């Protein structure tokens, strides 16, 4: 990992308007948790709501992939599009160091979602099993890394990374995974859910991940490593665009 490229990436991300949008997006779970506390019906189950609706629902199915998509494509896609990537690549810095610097910064930026998710979980849980918040905190950090690695590769491989990423999140992981059970093995959302499930024990009717923790961890690690390797290989073969 190259510290100069890491610093450059931090400044790039901080200077982008989309970062402000993402920061606002990260506050959504807290707002939902507050609403639940204030307006939930008397027979509502806080554990069910927190595990299934909030952390296992909106946080891991929507906010986590969106935040990582924005940061990962912001870290590489902009440079590739405007041609400034040449200034990093026309140096002897190993390509893996460039990818790792950008990936780690984008991941840490996305992991900043964690305090918001944890706070939202704590607010909504109202004294329920704290393992739910801990489990999802760990799962969000792990899932953020896998998503960031995948979207980093995507942003080097295609100029339409944002569209491709949205298709993956909402079509592949959202619509199609409900129709074809096998998709759980190729779904970062399911790895995240499986990892979270290792930290608490709720009845299947309340929360039931489609992957057990061990295969979820194994697949998440394999996909993260594979995507990182692919991103490095893709960057080694990166060609300046015709318009560049």
């Amino acid at each position, binding site marked *: 990992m190259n510290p100069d490229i890491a610093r450059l990436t931090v400044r790039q991300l901080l200077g982008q308007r989309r970062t402000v949008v993402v920061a606002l997006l990260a506050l959504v779970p807290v707002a939902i948790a507050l609403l639940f506390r204030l307006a939930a019906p008397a027979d509502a189950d806080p554990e069910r709501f927190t595990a299934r609706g909030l952390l296992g629902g909106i946080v891991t199915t929507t906010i986590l992939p969106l935040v990582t998509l924005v940061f990962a494509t912001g870290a590489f896609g902009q440079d590739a599009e*405007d041609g400034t990537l040449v200034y*990093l690549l026309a*140096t*002897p*810095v190993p390509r893996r160091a460039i990818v790792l610097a950008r990936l780690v910064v984008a991941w840490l930026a996305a992991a900043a979602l964690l305090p918001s998710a944890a706070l939202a979980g704590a607010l909504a849980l109202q004294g329920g099993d704290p393992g739910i918040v801990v489990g999802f905190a760990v799962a969000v950090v792990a899932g953020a890394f896998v998503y960031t690695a995948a979207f980093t590769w995507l942003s080097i491989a295609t100029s339409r990374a944002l569209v491709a990423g949205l298709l993956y999140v909402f079509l592949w992981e959202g619509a199609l995974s409900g129709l074809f059970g096998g998709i759980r093995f190729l779904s970062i959302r399911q790895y995240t859910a499986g990892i979270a499930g290792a930290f608490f024990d709720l009845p299947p009717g309340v929360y039931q991940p489609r992957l057990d923790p061990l295969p979820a961890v194994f697949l998440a690690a394999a996909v993260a490593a594979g995507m990182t390797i692919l991103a490095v290989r893709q960057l080694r073969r990166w060609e*300046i665009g015709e318009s560049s």
Partner: protein
Amino acid sequence: MTAPSAPAIELRGVSRWYGNVVAVNDISFDVGPGITGLLGPNGAGKSTLLHMMAGFLRPSAGEVRILGEPAWQNPAIYRRIALVPEREAVYGFLTGRELVELAARLHGLPDPAAAAARAIDLVEMGPHAARQSGGYSKGMKQRIKIAAALVHDPQVLILDEPFNGADPRQRLHLMDLFRRMAAEGRTILYSSHILEEVERLADTVLVIVAGRLAASGDFRRIRALMTDRPHTFTVRSSDDRALAARLLAEPAIRGIAFEDGRLEVRSAELLAAARALPRAAREAGVTLFEVRPTDESLETVFSYLVHR
């Protein structure tokens, strides 16, 4: 390692195509130390060629070697070469100094601040180095990009349209800088679509038209080819028909025609025609009002070089 006799830049049968479009077609040449101009009209394939030389495009066929090593997928060559791309984009949130220092750090230089200061001085950007580069003019962006490219003292410098946006004084300064670098034994290759930019600076020229190498070698020889090519003029005089009759006897004149009532004269070469026209007018007792070349666009000149 570089073979002692290896040219700084070596292309062998290099082609590059995008789908069905051939951008560069079977080009071979060597470039040695000194200043070489890559001349061609817009869209001729100059940038594609330069990007292949700088290792940012894979040749579809053939081989590009820089200082004896393959250019493609070989980041180690960037210790000794540098590319100044045509596009203006820079990291606009960095100041000029930060941008050049970043380049120095990425090259692993022992004293990045000193190396950046030296490179910034070379392009006379010292007074503006503390400003964010996003607010620079086109010419200033060009100069700060050149500073970032020069920070590690490269042996081979590849520049894509480096004088774009530079005012005449900056242009002269950059030309002087490149001449000094060439005198130190470095290889400088730059592209331009402006004949005068190449004429004033390059010792050697490569002319590329429609992806093909149309001519290469000493600039004076190629300039002579461009001058001695057939030319067409429209002529306005006190008696076009008398002048036309007299011109037919001139060996330098290849053809006479009347187009829309105007006398059009075709000659074998420029200087002979320049002598023949006033002589014929004098002998025919005709006054010349206007002699206007009709085919002086760069594209016409390049087209002649390709088809000769």
